């Protein structure tokens, strides 16, 4: 449902110059609404007086979808701000860093998950200095282990592989 945004036109002079931010925003909301309508389709609606589980998801999704359409129409009429290019590098390294943390925390523990996530994420900016990032990551991880594991006594895995 986020595809529209990342593949959405980011050149001002796009198809007809009308793919403004709000047009894409409208499409985005319509896509989310459709997603919810699809997944809530099997749930009984009930009646207004005795609502079923499907009543609110379905009705809110319709309202939001309709609002998205309105947003699109308004923008097609009156224009508006233009979409800008997404920052793929930032997205990739920051989200990747979080995923690395999730992948390694239980199996390997914080000694691996901490530096892995931090060093990977550091590359999200062009200003990255690999050596500095590595040293900083190791020091921060040590600090986190001392703080969370020993000072606060949280049951967080530190060296899970041993």
């Amino acid at each position, binding site marked *: 449902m986020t595809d529209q*945004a*990342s593949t959405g036109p980011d050149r001002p002079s796009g198809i007809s110059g009308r793919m403004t*931010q*709000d047009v894409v*925003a409208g499409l*985005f*909301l319509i896509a*989310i609404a459709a997603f*919810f309508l699809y*997944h*809530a389709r099997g*749930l009984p609606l009930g009646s*207004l*007086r*005795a*609502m*079923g*589980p*499907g009543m*609110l*998801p379905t009705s809110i*999704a319709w309202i*939001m979808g309709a*609002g*998205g359409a309105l*947003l699109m129409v308004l923008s097609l009429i*009156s224009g508006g*701000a233009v979409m*800008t290019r997404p*920052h793929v590098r*930032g*997205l990739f390294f*920051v*989200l990747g860093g*979080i995923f690395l*943390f*999730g992948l390694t*925390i*239980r199996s390997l523990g914080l000694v691996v998950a*901490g530096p892995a*996530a*931090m*060093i990977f*994420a*550091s590359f*999200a*900016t062009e*200003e990255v200095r690999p050596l*500095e*990032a590595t040293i*900083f*990551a190791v020091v*921060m*991880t040590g600090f*986190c282990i001392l703080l*969370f594991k020993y000072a*606060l*006594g*949280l049951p*967080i895995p530190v060296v899970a592989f041993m």
Partner: protein
Amino acid sequence: MDIISNLALGFGVAFTVQNMFLCFIGCMIGTLVGVLPGVGPVATIAMLLPITFGLDPTGALIMLAGIYYGAQYGGSTTAILVNIPGEATSVVTTLDGHQMAKQGRAGVALGVSALGSFFAGCVATIFIAALGVPLTRLAQLFGPAEYFSLMVMGLVFSTVLARGSILKALLMVFLGLLLATVGTDLETGQERVTLGIQQLSDGIDFAPLAMGIFGFAEIISNLENPEARDVVRGKIGKLLPSWADIKQSTLPVLRGTFIGGLLGILPGNGAVLGPFASYALEKKIAKDPSRFGKGAIEGVAGPESANNAGAQTAFIPLLTLGIPPNAVMALMVGAMTIHGIIPGPQVMTKNPDLFWGMIASMWLGNAMLVIINLPLIGIWVKLLKVPYRLMFPAILIFCCIGIYSINNSVEDVYFTAFFALLGYVMIKLGFEPAPMLLGFVLGKLMEEKLRQALILSRGSFSTFVERPVSAGLLAVAAIMLIIALLPSINKKRDIAFQE
């Protein structure tokens, strides 16, 4: 006067060397842990709860209360400095607080927040001591119908949170309401839009949503615009609020304290609305509402006071009825129970020293907070000088550990990444996250209360207007909606023309 002798008893309990020390330690570690991005008050208290188990009941609860205030205040600090709200009530603080930080006024924002909170805390303490017991009767006027109407009123506030287009803000509220429907249906136990993911069966958690949409999405967006983040570390400005700042904040603090304190009494988590209501009010009565969202000091002073007053009066339903109004108070119940004190109407008569000791320690805790935090402001502000290329990985690791630790769940970490993506897309599309979070927080309560009210009335909608309190709240909501929409329609046209 009963209240004087009771308070004297309380202060006698709280002002022992041991309890003052515990209160200080509680405030200190509460602040230090609560300030970590990704660790809100609920997570902080859940983490620190076990360290109080070895103490005597009064000492443990005093320390825990200290942790609570510390975490609350630490959460506001994070909201101001790095735009990550630790809980629903500090969402509002991000709006103007973080803008102030970007303008080099972080110290002023933190100072006003500390002083406003202290004032609100003092008033709330007296309020609880004097009126706590009679006020519980007010709480009982609130059944499901009244809560529903209150939430409707809250949704009307949300239009005021918008910095840009009202239509887009409204649509974000609906997105929040929609996300709130995910999870097991209250009545039938059927799974709704959980996609077969077990962790979603209790619904989406606030922490991964807020951390993703605010924290991580903001990081990615900052990486994209080096100029935007350079402002933060560019100039630092004054560390403490000036006389003019304080004067400008006085009335908002008074109003915020009143609103927050009143809403906090409701056992159905009314405190969550306090900061939103205060912000809405300040923006409505301001001479120039367009300053809001761009670093208006009233937008920090009012909501922060409301937040702290509500955080404090939320103890009323717990101490007098035994009903925890929110997740933090539920943890307090656990803490009391583990010490053999079952919260309820009898705590006051059975354990008067504990009851009044705790109330006295509320004031003590607030005083400690100011003492601890005013000097700390300098350190926090200096942290902003850390180069962003180092700062953001540090924020990331704290958030990951914090999110993981709430439920010891890797899935929550993945959800956060997903919401970060969603949040980034929203930023790109010009949507604001605050109205969405308000919709999300109110959505859960609203559906629950709507359906309870309709089951109780056997399907009759007239219950909402027949019950006087509910009718009154709906009337206020309707009036506010009309006032809010009339000028904004004109304003929106103006903006459209400008573009």
